Structure formats: C-alpha cells, structure tokens
C-alpha cells in the first residue's frame, strides 16, 4: 500500500490551523518519522491517516484497501487478560487456529522481549512492557499501514533500540510505517522524516 497525501491541512472547529499544505507520498519499505513540537498535530495527522478524522483541507488516498493499525501513545489492554491473549487476538480474528495463533503470538512477544511475560495479565506489566505489547499486538494484525504514536516514550535506550529495529524490519517486509516521535534516536532510526513544523500555519 502507498498513501498519497495532497495539500493536507487541519484545524478544529474553525480554530487556528495545526498544519496545512502537507503533500507527500508514503511508500512501502519506508519508516516515516513524524516530528514536530507538542500541539503541532502529530496525533491528529495519525488519526487522519487512520481515517478517523476528516481533514479540514486536502486529501489522503490509499492505493489499496489494506489494513491500517494505529498504536496509541498510552497503552490500553484488558487488565485481567494474559499478555499472550492480547497478541493472539488479531490472529484469531483473521481465522488463524488458536494453537497456531498462540505460537505466532509467542514469537512476536520474543521479538519485543516479552516472552517471559506471556502468561501474566496485562495489569502486571510495566509501562514500557505495555507499550511494547501494544506494538506487538498492532503488528499481529499484519497491517499495510502502521501508525505508531510515541512508541519509545516510556522505554529505556536499550529497549527503545530493540523497538526501533523491529519497526525497521517491518518496513523492510513491505509495511508503510509512520512513527510520531519526539525521540531523536527513534527519529534517526527512521528512513524518512515529516516535520510538521514545516507545515505550520
């Protein structure tokens, strides 16, 4: 999937423009770092790309109807459900047999260094673990477009590097990845950059 962004702009209820005139094409195999100061509209742009918000100006066109997954900045899971269940759910949803889904989910958890936590409830995870779980779960949905909001904000440098590496691997597998981030190391790990400051009104 590629995403064509044309003269995109947004503001809420007639307020000041967050950004305007954003034109770009997001291609598979690339990881786009979405940067800009707080309040510049990074999360809003992700929501527009997800199709949840209608932009005030411009258009977003996807080349096909591939799946879009958005991973929120603040982890949200089902408190009493096991970590493994969270990652297996998107696989089960696509018709994968439970046993195979659990095996695949376990491998994804290993990628994010969460294998030993697979049978713990979500509520037992630390903030960083929960953040990684959300990424693992989002990837399990096998999206064509992965939108990630501040994925390393709660992680130490070593774990953040692991996450950056996994995101890079995903892009190489053909996923379009957009990462909203303040983190310089994560930004540098991305192949491309969209700085909303360049499109501020």
């Amino acid at each position, binding site marked *: 999937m590629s995403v064509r962004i044309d003269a995109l702009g947004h503001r809420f209820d007639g307020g000041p423009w967050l950004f305007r005139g954003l034109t770009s094409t997001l291609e598979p195999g690339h990881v786009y770092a979405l940067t800009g100061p707080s309040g510049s509209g990074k999360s809003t742009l992700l929501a527009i790309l997800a199709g949840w918000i209608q932009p005030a100006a411009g258009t977003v066109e996807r080349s096909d109807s591939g799946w879009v997954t958005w991973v929120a900045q603040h982890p949200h899971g*089902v408190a*009493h459900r096991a970590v493994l269940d969270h990652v297996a*759910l998107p696989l089960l*949803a696509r*018709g994968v047999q439970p046993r195979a889904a659990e095996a695949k989910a376990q491998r994804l958890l290993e990628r994010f260094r969460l294998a030993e936590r697979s049978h713990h409830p979500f509520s037992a995870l630390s903030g960083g673990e929960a953040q990684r779980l959300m990424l693992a779960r989002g990837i399990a*949905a096998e999206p064509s477009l992965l939108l990630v909001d501040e994925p390393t904000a709660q992680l130490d440098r070593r774990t953040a590097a692991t996450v950056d590496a996994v995101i890079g691997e995903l892009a190489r597998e053909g996923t379009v990845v957009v990462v909203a981030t303040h983190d310089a190391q994560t930004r540098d790990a991305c192949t491309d950059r969209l700085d909303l400051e360049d499109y501020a009104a």
Partner: protein
Amino acid sequence: MRWRAITREAWRNVVSGTSRAGIVAVVLVTAAVGLLLTDLFAVRGIVDRVDEFRSAGADVLVFSAASGVDPVRCEGIASAPGVHAAGAVRRDPDRYISTMPGSSIPTYEVSPGFAAVVHAAPAEGVGVVLSRELATTLQVVPGGGVHVLADGSGPAPTRVAGVYDYPADGRMSGFGFAMLVPTLDRGPFDACWVRQWPQSAETEVLLRSVAVADAGTDATPPELTQLNTSLGRQLDARALFLERPTRWLPLVGLLVAAAVGFAVVRLRRLEIASARHLRVPHGAQVLGVVLESCAWAVPVLLVGALAGAWVASSGVAADRGSTMALAMLAPIGVVLGGIAGSVLGVVSVRERALLRYLKER
C-alpha cells in the same frame, strides 16, 4: 473469526472477570427474583380474593319466585358452561328431632342437585343434609342418623347424607340452622340456586327461564339476587389478573436488564473498539457478548425457576404449571433485556471513536 476462537475469547473474558459476569449475575438475579416474587404475590392476592368471594357463596345466584320455579329446568342449568351446580329449594314445614323435641328445625325440600350448590360434604346416598351448626348441635356426622318427628307422627329414623357450612358472613339468612330434605318431586319450588364461576350474564338469562308460567305475584315478583352481597356483585378475576399493576414488571425487568447490559458493555468500549481495530469482526463481537451473557443468564433462569417452584409449591395458585409460567416471565424478560442491551452496547461502539475512548479513560 472462527467459532472456536469466538467461544475461546468469550470463555476467557468470563473467567478472567473481563465481562463482569459475576456482578451482573448478582444484580440481575436479584432483580428477576424480586420482580417475579412481587408479581406472584400480587396474583396470590387476587386468588385469595376469589377464594374469599367463592367460599362466602358470593358466586351463587338465587332466582326466587314463590311456587314459581321449575326444578327440572333449574337442575338443567348445571350443564351450562361455567355452572358448577344448580338446584331448586322450597320451604317445608318445620320438623323436630327426637333429641331436641322442643326446638323446631327450619326445613327445606331441595332437588337432588342442591346439596352440591351448598358444598354439602359428602352428600352421597339417601338422607337429609344438615347445616354445620345443626349437625354440631345434634352431634351427628355424615353417615350418622337422626330421628325426625314430622307432622305429629312418631320418630322416623333418617340417615344424614351430608353437612354443609353456612356461616353468618353476609349470606342470605334462613339456612344456617336448617335441614335439607332431598326430593324428586317435580312440582313447583320457591327458588333456584346456581353456583357458577366465572360469573356470566348468560347464566342469569338461563336462571330467569326456570320460572313457570304466572310465577310470582304482584306483591312478590320474581327476583334474581346473589346469595351473599357483602363482597360486591361482581368479581372479574380475569380482569383483575390482566389489569394488575404488577403485570408490567417483566417489562420493567427487561428494560432494567437492558440498561445494565448496555452499561456494562459500554464500560468495555475501549477494549471493544480496540479489538475491532485489530480486525475482530463486528459479528464475532456480538456473538461473543451473547455467549458471555450465558454466564449470567443461566443463573438468572435457574434461580428464577427455583423461586417460581418454591412459590408454586407453597400453594399460591391452584395450578403449578401456570404459576411456573408466570414466574418465568420476569427472568425471561431480564435475560432477553440483558442480552439485547449488551448487543446494543457492542453495536454502539465505534472504532473511529477509539481516540475519544482513550481520552475518556
């Protein structure tokens, strides 16, 4: 999403407490049992009123026409729909009993069906039927005998075929201390008594047809009365049942359970929207919530059935089957409402509102 995966998810949501099935079960079982007991006891009140009405003889109609009632036509009414017994009665000269020769006994000749009208128990075989007060005074029981003195002749041994209750509770006087003498005579009688339930205007028409030609006089025209008017003329048990205020309780249960089901599912809106964002199909979520609902629906139905069985066995109504059917209305309403509310809750969750749900956390 495969059926097995849906059941797996539903089961895990129940056992992990995610679906809050335990608290929902407690709330809805309490609501269902409370509602069903309230309704059943309201019905019990109606049944008690009917029992009181009937046991007081208020269900007996009396057509009076001095020497103007055809006993054959009167007895024939017993075969009419809703009529339980019919019989004719006429005043006869007082008799005397050998054991209390100083007291005259008010005596009535009655057609064979009359004993059933006054619930003479048991009234079998040949013999007189005594009021309870007279039988107690004479210390006789059905099957026993008394020596009746009549017309100045010697005492004639007479079998007591039955005894009937006739308390002074507002019913027509004259039969509380009396003796009924069955007769097959087809001559005119003074009155025709009919016990009917439920009450019917058609029976009144039939009753008026028992009058012989030129029945009654200008001074005492034929009249149709109720044996006991102290409890009112009419008691429409069907209307009382159908219009009882508690008839709406199953609907109330349905609405309350729908609100509970909706609210509990809406508490999970972030989880549901998130799952949908992860490709879980809409239909699978609806089916999953319905399956999860079984965790509280089964206890609601079981406890409801147990409560209904308990009430039925305690004799609230004569018909246990009807009592059970009535008892299950509220639990069934609660279950249907709860499931409908839960499904509505799932359907109302929007994937595109995921951001808003996150902010509302």
